[in-house]
């Protein structure tokens, strides 16, 4: 008689849910919000992307327009790196608003990444931003809880649970059926929404999508489905454990608050409380001190450069640097750049290590809180996480170093040792060399990088699937009928 009991329970649950008018109203509100999220996400992407591309081009044009001059002047002229927005940032804004968008790249100096949206925000940003990801991560689980809190508790309250059981339905079938029903309900909401989003997004991209992005998007669709399934099952479990539907509702709301509002903040607060990063002044002073210790090219009596000079003179067997067959100050500059860049990168690595330790609380919290798991995974897949940002910073720094050293090489090769200063006409280099240095172009991380950096988040979601299966299994033996 009860062969397909699970499926029938699920179907019934689905039907009852969609008979409820309130469901339509809530779904409608969320639908409007999603449309708004797609719209503003796209607007923002388009505007920002155009602005950044325009000034990247402008900066390059300015660079190329430079007349003949001493290469070191060009090293100080420098260049800009503007961080392009990833197309999937339309889906998940992630940290986008808190990440700077432009770096000035010049010789000797590693400038900060400036102009984040947050620096110009009114303080409203504290309330968050509406993105498709935000709706799927926080609002849909709440809707699932609203739809699911009655699933078993109400049957118990009405006494219908007793009747079902006496008719030969097993606890296992009941739990499986209700979970399946919840998942069906969720899918009826989720899939149309996500399909519309993907379609819209593809259209807006003018169908111009790389394989890498396709994989990212597919993974996003699958991982969000798993994430929402987790909430469906949690809703059923809470309902099964509650005596009345009112307690089921209040417990569900409590769980939702804990998972999406409190735990994330608590975890990150604890992390930043335990690991203290240096102040900006401290950070820069440490770098300055290390440079003084290793070798300061601006100090005429610096022992490191004395030694360099002596060894070069010995190799070429001459008495003074003016007799060298290449430009000696170019060589000093090259050595200086190598030392300062190395020291800066060491300190930056240490600083990022501190940040990583602060963030590890949020990362491992995913085993307690699936919201953190999907949040991290979704940002990484959308290319709006911290890792994608540091990757940009690293590429920009690599380019800066390459720019400075290429110009030092030009100086070493083409500038005479007897030139008095950079203003000396004899020390001018033909401007055709400027175009030889290619423009900065950011190459985004592949999906492999995103996957590696968020392995823990991925595992945490798998862990949740297993954990809930175990709990369901256990409940199918111990569930109270009355």
């Amino acid at each position, binding site marked *: 008689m009860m062969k397909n009991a699970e499926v029938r329970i699920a179907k019934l649950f689905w039907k009852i849910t969609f008979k409820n008018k309130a469901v339509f109203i809530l779904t409608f509100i969320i639908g409007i919000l999603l449309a708004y999220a797609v719209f*503003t996400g796209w607007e923002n992407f388009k505007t920002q992307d155009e602005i950044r591309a325009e000034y990247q081009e402008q900066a390059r044009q300015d660079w190329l327009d430079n007349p003949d001059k001493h290469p070191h002047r060009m090293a100080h002229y420098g260049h800009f790196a503007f961080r392009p927005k990833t197309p999937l940032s339309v889906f998940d804004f992630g940290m986008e608003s808190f990440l700077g968008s432009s770096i000035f790249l010049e010789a000797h100096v590693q400038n900060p990444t400036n102009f984040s949206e947050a620096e110009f925000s009114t303080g409203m940003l504290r309330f*968050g931003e509406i993105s498709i990801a935000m709706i799927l991560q926080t609002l849909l689980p709440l809707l699932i809880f609203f739809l699911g809190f009655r699933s078993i508790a109400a049957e118990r309250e009405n006494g219908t649970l007793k009747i079902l059981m006496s008719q030969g339905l097993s606890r296992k079938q009941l739990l499986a059926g209700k979970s399946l029903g919840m998942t069906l309900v969720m899918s009826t909401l989720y899939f149309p929404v996500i399909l519309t989003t993907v379609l819209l997004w593809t259209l807006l991209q003018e169908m111009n999508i790389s394989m890498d992005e396709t994989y990212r998007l597919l993974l996003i669709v699958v991982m969000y489905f798993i994430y929402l399934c987790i909430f469906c099952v949690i809703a059923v479990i809470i309902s099964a454990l509650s005596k009345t539907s009112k307690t089921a509702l209040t417990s569900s709301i409590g769980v939702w608050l804990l998972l999406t509002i409190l735990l994330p903040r608590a975890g990150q607060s604890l992390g930043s409380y335990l690991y203290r990063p240096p102040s900006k002044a401290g950070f820069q002073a440490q770098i300055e001190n290390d440079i003084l210790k290793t070798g300061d090219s601006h100090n005429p009596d610096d022992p490191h450069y004395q030694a360099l000079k002596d060894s070069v003179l010995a190799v070429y067997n001459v008495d003074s640097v003016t007799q060298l067959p290449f430009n000696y100050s170019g060589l000093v500059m090259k050595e200086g750049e190598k030392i300062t860049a190395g020291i800066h990168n060491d300190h930056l690595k240490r600083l990022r290590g501190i*940040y990583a330790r602060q963030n590890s609380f949020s990362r491992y919290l995913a085993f307690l809180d699936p919201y953190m798991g999907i949040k991290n995974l979704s940002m990484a897949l959308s290319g709006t996480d911290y890792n994608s940002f540091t990757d940009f910073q690293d590429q920009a720094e690599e380019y800066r170093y390459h720019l400075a050293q290429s110009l030092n090489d030009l100086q070493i090769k083409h500038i005479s040792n007897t030139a008095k200063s950079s203003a000396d006409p004899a020390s001018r280099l033909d401007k055709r060399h400027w175009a030889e240095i290619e423009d900065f172009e950011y190459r985004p991380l592949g999906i492999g990088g995103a996957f590696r950096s968020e392995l823990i988040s991925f595992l945490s979601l798998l862990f949740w699937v297993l954990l809930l299966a175990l709990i369901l299994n256990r409940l199918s033996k111990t569930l109270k009928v009355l």
Partner: protein
Amino acid sequence: MKLLFINFTRSNNVKIGLSFIILAGVISLLVGKQHIEKINRSVDETARYQQEHIERHAEYNKDDLGLMLYYIKFSLVNSTPALNALSIGQRDVNPSVKSVTIRTLEAQKYDADLNNPYNLLIGNIDFSFVLIFLFPLLIISFTYNLVSEEKESGIWKIIAVQSKNPLGFVLKAFGVRLLVTIGGLLLLYAIAVPVLGIAPDADLGKFFLASVLYILVWFAICFFVVSLQKSSSFNAIILLTIWILLVFVLPAAINNDLQNRYPLPEALETTVKQRKGYHEKWDMDKELTMDKFYAHYPQFKKYALPEGDFSWLWYYAMQQMGDDEVSEQSAALRKKLGQRNTAASRIAQFIPTLHLQLSLNDIAKSGLDNQLRFLDETGRFHERLKLHFYPKIFGGAPVTSENWDDFKVEVFSDETTLSRTRLYTPLLIFIVVFNILGWFIFKKRLHRL
């Protein structure tokens, strides 16, 4: 009334709710304390390193004042009132210290602080968060089943029959809950004031009164929803939906809108253009640069350009051109940020959560307004430094002519105050409107059983 009070406070849910909010409140105070300590540490370190840094450069470049001033940075601190610990606002994003050399200001004005973006993304549990996000939940949990629970359990019939004034009974029940909530708030202030060393001044008064009014707003909203006399579950869902609209959806949607309505290409334009404004002068006729410089600062006409390839007079004139040639873009950026801010506070009047957050940030000097004034002051600070050092550099004064110990970190105090009418009116309107609505609906429906 006394019985109502005892009955209410004995309930387990109330004890859990209250202890939870007190715990969250105490954590928020610790977070705020840590935030202030971090800023103070940063200020102390800046002061120490500034001194070391200046001493070292005075030693290294002892023969060349122009070269020394090429390197050294002077810092300006945005003073942080103790109230800042209660409403961190934008102070975790924006640096409270700006360090500048006398070179082009635009290239350094917006330099970002060192930050872990994950911390910024998740946000702080500061007192304003507890007040704006969590207190309403406590109020909702206290009141959502008033009347409806009595109706569901059948007690309402007895109350309706026995009491001459059932609305009076409802009001008393609300009054008890209001007293307990305000008690919780007072307790948190009683801890905050000594622990954070907050001065009992007008700002604290405003901060406190605004929080009380905000709590009254939520009581008014709950009173209105309860007056509809639906089931407990319905009330819970409706109130939570209102909460989500007010603390998530509306502010976030408005934020998206403002970002899109006021994009800031001026920021990038300024930074790209100032580079050109300065650097292209290396390859131009020196006279052109000097003419423009003398036109900006007629008082320096008396310093004539010396012979030779290079002079600091010409160099700093070139640097000045970096700023002068983007003054239009820079002003446009400043104007747009002002517009963003005005638009935000105008819309916020209709959304109590947003209004309170922006107002508390204003009182605690942690909003965009404060940041803009700090940036303006940074500009004036930079100008003062230039006007002090330019004549000495151009006149060939020796490095030793300055007493370098005098160059301490300077402090900027933002003295602007928020008007009380602007602060309280929107909240008062909300309280009155919802209470009147609730009152009428109650009157109409209360006797239905």
